[in-house]
């Protein structure tokens, strides 16, 4: 990750979608939180962004580290607490461009798994409490970082762009763990859709609510911004219409027939 240029996408899209609303104070530079509107509704937008001066050296490239994950949890739980007595729960938009979770000794030592659990818990709890939670993937959505920031959303939207990717592990590490060469791994990704790194293959898995074309994902035009806003509002309305607060809407694809079969058979045999 260190060889790659630091991505600005999370910051750019957060700023665009909130019309440069002021960032909430009290968060570290790597976690941006802004309260703005989604159409006529109140919404909180959250992004994790690179911070070259991050005190934790393994979390400088936009990775979700120990502090980032717990701060995500705080940003989400603030909204849950503030709206506790309100009938209309505020929307939460996770703007997702996360290189990975932070890989390091400090991170394991201080329980980064627990930190990511804190963030995933906050998003899941917001969804269960009735907050419409939308994940907007504008760049990389990798592995544990995505599990902590966005994967618990009611609806997922991704930009159709070559730099947008979702995966469980980087290619070099995935090859090492599965005892394959990178070339072999790439050969499999071409014909096994869940192994692929590109967003079109990911879309075929049925996990996205919408895949959106934009003209410039790095520097959105006015039309790009409008397209994303329209889609976020449509997702918001769709969530409001849906009586379920769970993740069932992701189970419909032909590539997930086994997921559906397992659930059907479990239900038949449960009692």
């Amino acid at each position, binding site marked *: 990750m260190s060889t790659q240029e630091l991505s600005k996408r999370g910051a750019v899209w957060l700023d665009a979608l909130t019309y440069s609303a002021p960032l909430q104070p009290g968060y570290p530079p790597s976690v941006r939180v802004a309260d703005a509107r989604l159409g006529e509704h109140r919404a909180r937008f959250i992004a994790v962004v690179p911070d070259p001066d991050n005190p934790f050296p393994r979390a400088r490239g936009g990775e979700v580290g120990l502090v980032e994950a717990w701060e995500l949890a705080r940003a989400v739980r603030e909204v849950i607490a503030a709206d506790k007595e309100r009938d209309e729960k505020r929307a939460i938009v996770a703007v997702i461009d996360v290189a990975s979770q932070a890989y390091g000794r400090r991170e394991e030592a201080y329980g980064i798994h627990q930190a990511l659990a804190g963030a995933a818990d906050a998003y899941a709890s917001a969804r269960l409490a009735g907050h419409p939670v939308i994940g907007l993937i504008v760049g990389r959505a990798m592995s544990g970082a995505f599990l902590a920031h966005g994967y618990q959303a009611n609806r997922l939207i991704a930009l159709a762009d070559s730099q947008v990717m979702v995966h469980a592990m980087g290619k070099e590490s995935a090859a090492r763990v599965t005892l394959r060469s990178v070339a072999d791994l790439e050969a499999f990704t071409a014909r096994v859709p869940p192994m692929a790194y590109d967003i079109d293959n990911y879309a075929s898995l049925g996990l996205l609510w919408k895949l959106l074309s934009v003209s410039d994902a790095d520097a959105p035009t006015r039309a790009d911004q409008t397209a994303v806003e329209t889609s976020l509002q449509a997702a918001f309305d769709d969530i409001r219409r849906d009586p379920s607060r769970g993740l069932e809407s992701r189970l419909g694809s032909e590539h997930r027939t086994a997921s559906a079969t*397992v659930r059907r058979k479990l239900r038949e045999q449960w009692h």
Partner: protein
Amino acid sequence: MDTRQLLERQSFIELDARSRAKRLLDKGTFSELLDPFQRVTSPWLMRQGIVTQADDGMVVARGTIDGEPAVVLGIDGGFQGGSMGEVSAAKIAGSLELAAEDNRNGIPTRAVILFETGGVRLQEANLGLAAIAEIHAGIVDLRRYQPVIGITAGPIGCYGGMSIAAGLCSYLIGTREARLGLNGPAVIEQEAGIAEFDSRDRPMIWSFTGCEQRHRTGLVDDYVADDADAMRAAVIDLFRAGRPEACRSERVAGFLARLSEVDPGVQATPEQVAAIYGKGFQS
């Protein structure tokens, strides 16, 4: 443990997933759902030339624990490192969803998850990751009604997205054999270099991620000997304790306060982690 106890006890770690589930459930109540004879296997491994297993490495066992309806979800670490493929993960997520539904219908079904897993099965990458998100969702939902208890006994331990699942459980039990961490040692070494993490330095790895240290630092609730009876007794005690006032993953302010005491400029030591996290996470 003296020699006689050692000879008389039944090791928990040496049991396979099915036997572990059987030992945790009340005697004679075990019944398996989606058992191996139903042959619901991974649709993705065959086309990569990998032999499948008839239960996809996942045991779903119904029965009772302490007289109450229960489901034990036993991951078989012997198949593909206990990794989560589409089917194995759906067996966990689907069971948690049904258990939560039971509770909404007045049936107090509770769940135990046996974490023996490296995380996502990379041959099914994105479907494993998606299903792990559904496991997370299932734990957070069910946990509102009944404690969800996680056990990591070893020898695989608990890694990747499933370590996050462990972090979401109401209670976590570990043994000396088991490790609990997000990133596997080989992957940290690959991503960050051998100076950051030497994947062959086993004492170093256990000193940070072994469950003895995890218990000392408050990231595991119960540290149990490798004894099947002791394990079942610990599970029953935790269920009787009921839901905790706050789960570990809800203690946001507490963890942020402790992290603010960490000096990120120096490399971590197990002693330093114990000194800081030993204070607890009350906010």
